[in-house]
């Protein structure tokens, strides 16, 4: 793979994102809204209690700050609409007529948007940590940080592959709105964006460890908080295998389905 080519694709995508200042500043405020709402809710629920499912109010707030940040890192969910529309409207030709791999293009664009979000949202996270005087956001050891970063990275690649697969389904089904929305809601719940998965019954939690969504936000956030350390290595292997599977499935679907292009607008 020619990296400068894909770096240039990512860079131009990032410059295009920066064309609108209002959108840039709105993006920076997103983590604040989610964390403030969660804080107000959990403060009420913690009234008179020290811990809930092993979380103190401080770790719970730190959990929401971390998952708000991690959730923003996956930018491919929004890109599905753009690529599916390109396929439906016959504009996908712009990727096929140039010497680029369309999935490489998708990944490069996603990576650039993620870097952009890190730039915008990291400042918000630091500010939130300062506002809440939350010391739990500083993990105790380096191995926790490295495991969390590696698992979160593989989780992002997994989500990119899953969303690529969703986008290319537009060749088959044309409109993938319903499927994509249902998938999005399920992923948000299973990834622990709404609630820490530790609140679920043990049996359900055990089952979830076999699926990839557990490793997208919940486990990396837990590791950063010094929790679930014993799951770090097995988690890395599990999400790694799921990511390889999703990459292969996405590539297979793309090769099969692009041949069904009926050339909209021809």
């Amino acid at each position: 793979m020619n990296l400068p080519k894909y770096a240039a694709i990512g860079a131009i995508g990032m410059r295009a994102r920066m064309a609108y200042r209002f959108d840039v500043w709105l993006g920076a405020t997103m983590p604040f809204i989610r964390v403030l709402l969660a804080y107000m809710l959990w403060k009420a629920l913690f009234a008179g209690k020290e811990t809930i499912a092993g979380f103190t109010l401080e770790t719970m707030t730190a959990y929401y700050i971390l998952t708000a940040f991690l959730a923003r890192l996956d930018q491919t969910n929004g890109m599905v609409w753009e690529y599916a529309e390109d396929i439906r409207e016959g504009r996908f030709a712009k990727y096929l007529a140039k010497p680029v791999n369309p999935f490489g293009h998708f990944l490069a664009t996603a990576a650039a948007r993620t870097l952009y979000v890190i730039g915008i949202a990291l400042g918000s996270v630091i500010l939130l940590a300062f506002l809440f005087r939350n010391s739990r956001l500083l993990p105790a050891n380096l191995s926790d940080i490295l495991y969390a970063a590696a698992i979160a990275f593989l989780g992002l690649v997994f989500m990119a592959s899953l969303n690529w697969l969703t986008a290319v389904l537009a060749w088959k089904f044309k409109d993938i709105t319903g499927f994509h929305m249902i998938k999005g809601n399920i992923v948000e719940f299973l990834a622990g964006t709404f609630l820490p998965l530790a609140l679920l019954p043990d049996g359900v939690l055990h089952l979830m460890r076999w699926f990839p969504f557990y490793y997208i936000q919940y486990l990396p956030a837990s590791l950063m908080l010094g929790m679930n350390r014993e799951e770090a290595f097995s988690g890395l292997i599990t999400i790694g295998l799921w990511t390889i599977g999703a990459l292969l499935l996405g590539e297979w679907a793309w090769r099969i389905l692009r041949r069904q292009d009926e050339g909209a607008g021809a």
Partner: protein
Amino acid sequence: MSIIQVTNLSKIYQRPVKEPGFKGSLKALVKRSVLQKKALTDFNLRVEEGELVGLIGPNGAGKTTLVKLLCGIIQPTSGSLDVLGFKPGELKDAFRRQYAVVMGQKSQLWWDLPALDTFRLNKEIYGIPEEKFKKNLHEYVDLFGISELLQVPVRNLSLGERMKMELMAALLHDPRLIFLDEPTIGLDAIAQKQIRLFLKEINTRRQVTILMTSHYMDDIRHLCNRTIVINEGEKMYDGSLENLLTRFQGQRDVQVILSEPVGLGLNLPDGVTCRERQPYRLHLQVPRSQVKELLSSLLLQCEMDDIRIEDEEIGNVIERIYRSGREVFA
């Protein structure tokens, strides 16, 4: 050596059909009917390096389908394709580096950024060396005279300016073959002329093979040394525009300005069609062989201030060919 070889190429689209109204929508939820639309049928084509070929035909004739098949964007139903020595559908990078496609109604430029950003992106995508990139960019900027527009966001450019940028973006990597799908659509006369001159220059100076579709006969007349007429997915004519016109431009347009108004009693020879009749002006269409007869008849019947005799408009000729279908070539 042929740069494009197409043999018995056919493309059939599967088009979903749905009855109108709410009932039709409900029915389609359960069972969707599909209509087969033949876009191309047993199409054969051979294009040599350096040719400038014009594809003309009415809407839905199969022109854009042919371009998309040649680029590898869509797959054929049957038949074989060889473009630059490759099978287009395989989308090999070595193949895609050697051609460019410009679709008049679909942009490759980044809307919110200056065109120069897209050019720089293409430099990386096609691996264009910096020196060659600068040389080509300067050459095209000079040809179009648009250096001051390179840093203006694409969304702020006029349609004509955008098309010039599209062409530049497509040509920076020195493609051997360019597909142009209606490159002058919607442009004013000045911009159309500039783009035609540019394409002619590129074809002549760089020996770039160009295959273009257009609805504007002026594009074909000024640019193409070979014209292919396509209708309902079949090739109807392949040759020079001059030969086509010699064969089918059998009529002359005669415009007469009268000194005095003529009434309805003007007698015109058989075979002459009156396209427009005003008190002081007549617009007639007459077979070439009857021009002399018509002039004699008019001189006898009315006083004329001016008379103009021209070949029939090419657009009308082509329209007649489309309408007549294949029998005109039989």
